């Protein structure tokens, strides 16, 4: 070590210190990128153990690759270091945005994911060997190694504490990656500045500022780019958002639970949707003697169809849903389609994108079993789908011994709305059989079976159900006192009383 106290040694010394500091920053950033990728992958693909293991594996291996490749750099190591910092800042900073976009737009999410992780890993892997080589003349080797590695591991600790305690809850995944990208680039800018006397590097400086500007723009516009602007309205991280012609589709994910929202209303939680869908489909379906032709109105998420396909007697299912964006998503997108067990790809299923009421008016087919899974009657447009006129039209499409199952809001939270649907179904000439089930994420939920003949309790259900069995089913058809029938008016096109019931009843429970 050079012990002479000349200005130049002093200067070199402070540069060395600065470089050591940047080791800390670099290490923190590197681990943050890795954690981000792992977290996003487990949001998107579930099964966090697998996601984190594979990502850590790929990342570490790539770092090794980077370290190996460092041997090919000989000249002007400072410049190479600055260049790499800028690149890590760019790649790492954009990582969340790229991964979210990849999830929404491509089916090749995994390819993008692992390529991105590998790229980041290689670049990060280059950093430490380069720093070691730059500083090798400033410190004795043992001192250098101990300094660099301890700072590296300290950075790791900082990252692993910051990430769960501050970044995920406060800053959010997207902004975190930008913030750390910015940090990386600042290291590059600082290095440029320190070594400006020896090396003037206008190109690198310009590059650094350009990337900085890009990342800062990203901070401001990434939500717009991803269409995630209402992210804060959701309790869990948003992993997907898209506006179709008809509605806003948002998916959130936390701890392996995916929730789907349409226009902000919860459609299902992947944890308990089986309760809702089994209860909607099987009591009615199993009671039909020969359910060959089945119609589903609404339910573009394909969950109802998944349940129906469990019954081998069903030959053909027609799914009529307004929104092609929904049915496409749940047919083609691997993550969403997996939720319905790829039901919409079955050769037994035909998907029609049409407005249900209009479609019913025009169609002449008859069905043995019909499921109606419309959104709740919270406005006048949707309210039309719960009127005597609609149910009369439905009657014309139901085989004489067929059954229609109708999702009917909550008999507990919207008691009048529920019984209004029951009465409206009766008024349309049906035998109406109400029942209910507890779905934790919705609360107590109600359904009505509409049939021309009195409903017969089914004797057997398909094998692979998680909720329904013969024992429990009859109990669903009895109503506790606080959900018993109340006097209500019938819902007609010209009064739409149901919309009022629905609003007022739910209003009582609103915070």
């Amino acid at each position: 070590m050079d012990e002479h106290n000349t200005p130049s040694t002093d200067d070199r010394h402070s540069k060395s210190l600065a470089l050591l500091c940047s080791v800390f920053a670099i290490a923190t950033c590197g681990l943050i990128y890795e954690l981000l990728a792992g977290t996003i992958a487990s949001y998107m693909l579930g099964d966090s153990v697998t996601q984190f293991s594979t990502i850590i594996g790929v990342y570490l291996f790539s770092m090794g690759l980077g370290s190996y490749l460092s041997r090919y750099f000989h000249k002007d190591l400072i410049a190479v270091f600055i260049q790499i910092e800028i690149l890590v800042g760019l790649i790492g900073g954009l990582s969340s945005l790229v991964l979210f976009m990849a999830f929404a737009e491509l089916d090749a999410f995994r390819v993008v994911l692992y390529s991105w992780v590998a790229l980041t890993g290689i670049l990060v892997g280059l950093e430490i060997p380069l720093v070691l080589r730059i500083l090798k003349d400033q410190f004795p080797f043992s001192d250098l190694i101990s300094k660099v590695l301890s700072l590296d591991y300290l950075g790791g600790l900082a990252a692993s504490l910051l990430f769960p305690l501050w970044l995920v809850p406060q800053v959010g995944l997207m902004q975190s990656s930008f913030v750390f990208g910015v940090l990386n680039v600042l290291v590059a800018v600082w290095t440029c500045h320190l070594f400006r006397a020896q090396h003037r590097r206008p190109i690198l400086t310009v590059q650094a500022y350009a990337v900085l500007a890009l990342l800062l723009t990203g901070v401001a516009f990434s939500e717009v780019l991803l269409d995630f602007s209402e992210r804060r309205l959701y309790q869990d991280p948003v992993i997907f958002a898209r506006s179709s012609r008809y509605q806003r589709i948002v998916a959130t994910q936390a701890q392996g639970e995916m929730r789907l929202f349409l226009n902000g209303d919860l459609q299902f939680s992947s944890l308990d949707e089986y309760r809702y869908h089994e209860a909607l489909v099987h009591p009615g379906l199993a009671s039909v003697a020969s359910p060959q032709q089945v119609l589903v109105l609404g339910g573009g998420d394909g969950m109802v169809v998944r349940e129906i396909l469990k019954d081998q007697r069903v030959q053909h299912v027609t799914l009529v849903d307004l929104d092609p964006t929904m049915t496409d998503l749940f047919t083609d997108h691997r993550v969403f389609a997996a939720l319905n067990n790829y039901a919409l790809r079955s050769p037994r299923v035909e998907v029609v994108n049409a407005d249900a009421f209009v479609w019913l008016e025009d169609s002449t087919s008859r069905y043995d079993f019909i499921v109606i899974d419309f959104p709740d009657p919270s406005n006048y447009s949707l309210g039309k789908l719960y009127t005597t006129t609609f149910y009369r039209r439905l009657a014309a499409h139901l085989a004489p011994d067929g059954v229609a199952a109708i999702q009917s809001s909550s008999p507990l939270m919207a008691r009048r709305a529920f019984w209004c649907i029951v009465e409206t179904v009766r008024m349309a000439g049906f035998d109406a059989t109400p029942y209910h089930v507890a779905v934790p994420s919705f609360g107590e939920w109600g359904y009505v079976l509409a049939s021309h003949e009195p409903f017969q309790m089914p004797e057997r259900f398909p094998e692979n159900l998680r909720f329904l069995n013969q024992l429990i089913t009859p109990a669903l058809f009895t109503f506790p006192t606080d959900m018993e029938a109340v006097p209500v008016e019938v819902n007609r096109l010209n009064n739409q009383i149901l919309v009022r019931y629905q609003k007022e009843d739910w209003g009582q429970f609103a915070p």
Partner: protein
Amino acid sequence: MTAIRHLTRRDLLRLSPSVAAALAVGCRSRTGRFVDREIDTGRIAGSIVGASHEVGHRLRAGGLPEPQEIRDVPVVIVGAGIAGLSAGWKLAKSGFRDFEILELETDAGGNSRWGANEVSAYPWGAHYLPVPSSESTAVRELLEEMGMVHDLGPDGDPIYDPRHLCHAPQERLFIDGRWQEGISARELLGTAPAPGDQAMLAEFEQQVRRYQDYRDARGRRAFALPMALSSDDPDLVALDRISMLEYFDRAGWTSERLRWYVDYCCRDDYGCSLETTSAWAAWHYFCSRDEEVEYLTWPEGNGRIVRHIVERLERHLHSGMLVYRIRLTADPGTSETSTEGVDVDVLDTRTNSSVRIRARQVIYALPRFTATHVLAGYELPGIDAFSYAPWMVANLTVDRLPEGAAWDNVIYDSLSLGYVVATHQNLRVAPGPSVLTYYMPLAVPNPEVARRWMLERSWDDWVSIILGDLAPAHVGLESLVTQIDVMLWGHAMIRPVPGFLWGEPRRRAAEAFGPVRFAHSDMSGISLFEEAQYRGVRAAEDLMRDVGHAYRSSLGLAEEGV
């Protein structure tokens, strides 16, 4: 860029000599509430369409080509509005085949005409029909024939197909800077009652119920539909001598909002304001139907009824035919049956050549003011008492329905009546484009001046007036509008001004002129589908009775009316 203008009542009144009287009405525009501003109307297409004013001018100017050929047609119906079409409908239904209907416009329907574009069908005039009361037997018969009756209720009353009964939400009102559901007096006064409002409303409603329940010694309603079946008790008839404004003043009903509401109803049904509507006519509006009346409506409005009848009369109907002269060929002073007949001179507006039709009977289903120019030798003392309100109707095509739109959307304190939504009865759930039919009656004391003013406005003027009126209640509406077509109805509706309904000229208007019988809503003095149909069916039945053709009356118990 167009400067939108908020046309005020005062602007309109400047056109009219009796400014002072009209200003007494409690519904002056609050000028200054809306700021005039510039908006971008660049992408809005459209034009002034329809109603052949030029042809009307030609009629008055004379000098039309003389007939080149002569045809014989036993019965000619002149005019294919609801009255003329209904006459044809009744004849055809009774197996009477030898008649022709001559209509000036390319499309039949008159004030109930309709149009269509790629978004929707829409009305150009009449847009709804209240569910008929038991007196309106012919209306019931027609609706049943149209397949509108779904079922029969326990009391044998028809139950109408809910698809065609106006869906909820039916009406909304923009008042105090926001939209509220419903426009009835009760809903209106419920929001911000001034002192005394509630008491006046209670009195008003009590009077409505009293008149609704009234039956005279012969069992007739105070106000019936058709109006010819109303009671002629002197107390009731006396109502026709004063205006509704006077009635309000006498009753001490000073409530501004109640006045606005009744004024709105008068403008809506008669194109007349509170001060120009006879109190009899105004009460007729509120009391001729049972409570809680429902409306039948279709995208094309009453055009749906026109379509139905026209389909059945296709081979009888000749459009593009200007009837410019009708002359009796024998002295009408002698007994009716002995007249030779009638010459009907018609200009085919497409070929610009004329034909003379020799008819034995004519049903004259044009507004009566035309008789002065068309019907040679016809004299009706006091024919000038037939005066007509001008209306402007516009159809606005929009990319997206305004948020929260009801079927009928009314703006408090506006000169217009607001708009109805043509796609309202649509069963679609998905939001989509629509057509809004915007109505503006020029309800001022002097319709002549208003008519001239109206015909002088350019399309740009109308666009700025319409958007200026709607803008305060619809932020950014102009960016949704792609097309505005405007129809100017010079003589849209007969005006039931005080004294007209129970006066001599109207009563005598029902009398036949030799073999020429009359049929038009203006003979009732109130312009309503039920009246037009009644007059048409009645003329057809009288004609068949006179020529000895057997028929079953559609007018049921209808007694001799006036």
